[in-house]
């Protein structure tokens, strides 16, 4: 009898919660931050949001970058797609093209007034008269080195291409590669090559009318310089992804590398001496303004249901509040940089032990990211073909034609433009 009473009591207590859950608006978030500690941090924030918003239930479903481009259109077609989906800029034209995206321009404007977005992060998602995603975090390419290694070699931190080459040559001694540069047909190489291109006056790959202008003297010059610098890289750098470059730097086999961040590996797998870790802007051709590639990761809002769309917006607003935003960015301390002015000052961001330790480096990275650019998303005129150009790594493929197949930079860049035109059809 006692047990029956207990059961009845428990059922009565649970009923309101069950009824509430039934009425709650359920929204699904797909993101590609798969490492368990990142998933756990996102879940902490979701739990806090769900607790503060009883009428909304946010669920996360981590995805894989390798699959999500193919999986999302299929899931949306089957009515099983997410309500919110993390993205990098070249992902948005694909979904916009199949009519799965609506502009969030007004929502971004509202958030901008409150938090002040870094302009370049919004620019990457602004084209065709709309804004197609809300920027969430930024990653910008930088030049990493050890101060002690440069000092021992009597090398100054390079600011021009000539200084960069001279430094790489001087640092290439005793089995050490002066400059770790990838030449794989892979996204990392796209990123490092474009980082050189934007510092050599080859930022734009499209003309205003949508025709390609990849084949131009500035691009050829950038490829010539990159190829010249690549001779100071390890022999297997034609198969490198980000991990190999970080390993090369951590093991002191590479004196300098281009990378978004090496903080986590340097801290856990190398010396971890914050005072010796140097970071600088990517050198420019003649010492002028330093630019870099930057990836403003963002969230696309996909729901066609008004209640779900409002719930999604509420969740995104919650994430960008400074008291939550720092915790969100520090799901991977030292890698994800703020895209808002108040986020860059958030106590929750700077209080993380790793961020505190490498504060000097992170401040430099944030400063460098202000001049961030992304190929195909630089002028407010983005053309759908950029998705295929980016996905097929044609910028990296062009480099391989020079480094591996021995073509001249001019031939390879001309062939690269032809390939871009082919995939753009």
């Amino acid at each position, binding site marked *: 009898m006692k047990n029956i009473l207990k059961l009845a009591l428990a059922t009565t207590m649970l009923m309101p919660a069950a009824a509430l859950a039934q009425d709650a608006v359920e929204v699904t978030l797909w993101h590609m931050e798969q490492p368990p500690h990142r998933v756990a941090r996102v879940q902490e924030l979701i739990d806090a949001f769900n607790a503060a918003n009883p009428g909304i239930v946010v669920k996360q479903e981590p995805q894989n970058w390798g699959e999500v481009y*193919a999986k999302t259109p299929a899931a949306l077609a089957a009515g099983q797609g997410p309500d919110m989906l993390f993205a990098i800029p070249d992902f948005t034209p694909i979904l916009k093209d*199949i009519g799965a995206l609506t502009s969030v321009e007004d929502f971004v404007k509202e958030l901008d007034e409150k938090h002040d977005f870094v302009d370049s992060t919004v620019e990457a998602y602004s084209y065709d008269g709309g804004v197609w995603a809300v920027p969430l975090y930024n990653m910008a390419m930088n030049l990493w080195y050890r101060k002690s290694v440069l000092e021992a070699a009597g090398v100054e931190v390079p600011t021009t291409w000539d200084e960069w080459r001279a430094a790489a040559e001087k640092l290439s001694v005793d089995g050490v590669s002066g400059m770790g540069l990838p030449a794989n*047909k892979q996204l990392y190489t796209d990123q490092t090559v474009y980082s050189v291109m934007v510092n050599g006056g080859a930022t734009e790959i499209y003309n205003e009318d949508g025709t390609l202008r990849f084949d131009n003297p500035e691009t050829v010059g950038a490829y010539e310089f990159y190829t010249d610098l690549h001779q100071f890289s390890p022999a297997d750098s034609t198969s490198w992804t980000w991990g190999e470059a970080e390993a090369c730097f951590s093991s002191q086999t590479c004196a300098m590398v281009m990378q978004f961040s090496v903080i986590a590996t340097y801290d856990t797998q190398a010396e971890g001496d914050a005072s010796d870790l140097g970071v600088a802007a990517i050198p420019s051709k003649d010492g002028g303004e330093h630019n870099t590639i930057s990836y403003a990761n963002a969230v696309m809002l996909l729901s066609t249901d008004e209640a779900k769309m409002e719930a999604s917006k509420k969740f995104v607003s919650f994430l960008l509040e400074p008291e939550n935003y720092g915790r969100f960015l520090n799901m991977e301390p030292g890698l994800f940089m703020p895209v808002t002015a108040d986020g860059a000052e958030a106590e929750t961001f700077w209080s993380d032990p790793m961020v505190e330790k490498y504060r000097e480096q992170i401040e430099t990275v944030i400063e460098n990211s202000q001049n961030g650019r992304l190929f195909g998303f630089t002028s407010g005129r983005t053309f759908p073909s950029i998705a*295929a150009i980016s*996905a097929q790594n044609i910028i990296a493929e062009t480099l391989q034609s020079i480094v591996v197949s021995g073509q001249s930079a001019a031939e390879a860049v001309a062939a690269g433009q032809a390939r871009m035109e082919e995939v753009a059809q």
Partner: protein
Amino acid sequence: MPQSKALAFALVAPALLFLAATLGWPLVQAVQLSLQDVRVIGAPGNFVGLDNYERVLANPAFWSAARLSLVWVVANAVLQTALALAVALVLNEKFPGVRIARTWVILTWIVPTVVVVVIWRWLFSTSGGMINPLLIQAGIVERPVGFFATPWTALATLVFINSWRWFPFIALMMLAGLTRIPDELYEAARIDGASPWQRFRRITWPLLAPTLGVLAVIGTLLSFNVFDIIWLLTSGGPAGGSRTLPVLIYETAFKGYRLSEAATISVLATLMLMAFAIVATRALDRSDDR
């Protein structure tokens, strides 16, 4: 229809239906897709007839991938057969610990592909890898070698890794074939004064040939379809030097967003494999008849 025949059909029917659902239907879908112009999964497509076939057959990348697939299959077949035969012959002998050796030899085959890739990537790396320092210490090379740096070294390294992974499976199949050869034949040959080489050439090889034939067909089909190791180690590079047909299909569908074109390459690859399977099976039948 005689009752026994009807029963036979009834018993086979579930398997045939299962095959039709899991193989036939996707194949029909692939053919259908290859006649349209679908770019992304879920996007609508128009009927374009044989346009995709024309485009694919005129594309040098298709023929380059087909050539590389052929090189890949032949190189794997040669290396795997050589390694597997050597190991199977050793394991067919009687020596202390042979049972343990027969169990442990399969280890490389049961290790997950991702682990295999991580192990070999690290071993071949110039930053902390083991192989380069050994080669330098042995005086074979002066500077670290980039095993995945050029098209041919990358392909050769991939063949080596794939063969390393698959040869134990083939060795065990061969061992099964070897254990079926009666000991009496070897004893009689020994009494007649046949040397080890003569025993291998006159007894082992001819009696193992049917097993080798079947393995050649299965091995070719399995090798042809290998995608994971290639993609994870080189993504088909450098400069397309290891872009076999499965890699090209994946690239075309999921990087180039040309789903129909990828389906066309899949259909052509299936036709190639079917033609090979038919010819090889008939050849095996003829050799069995002899």
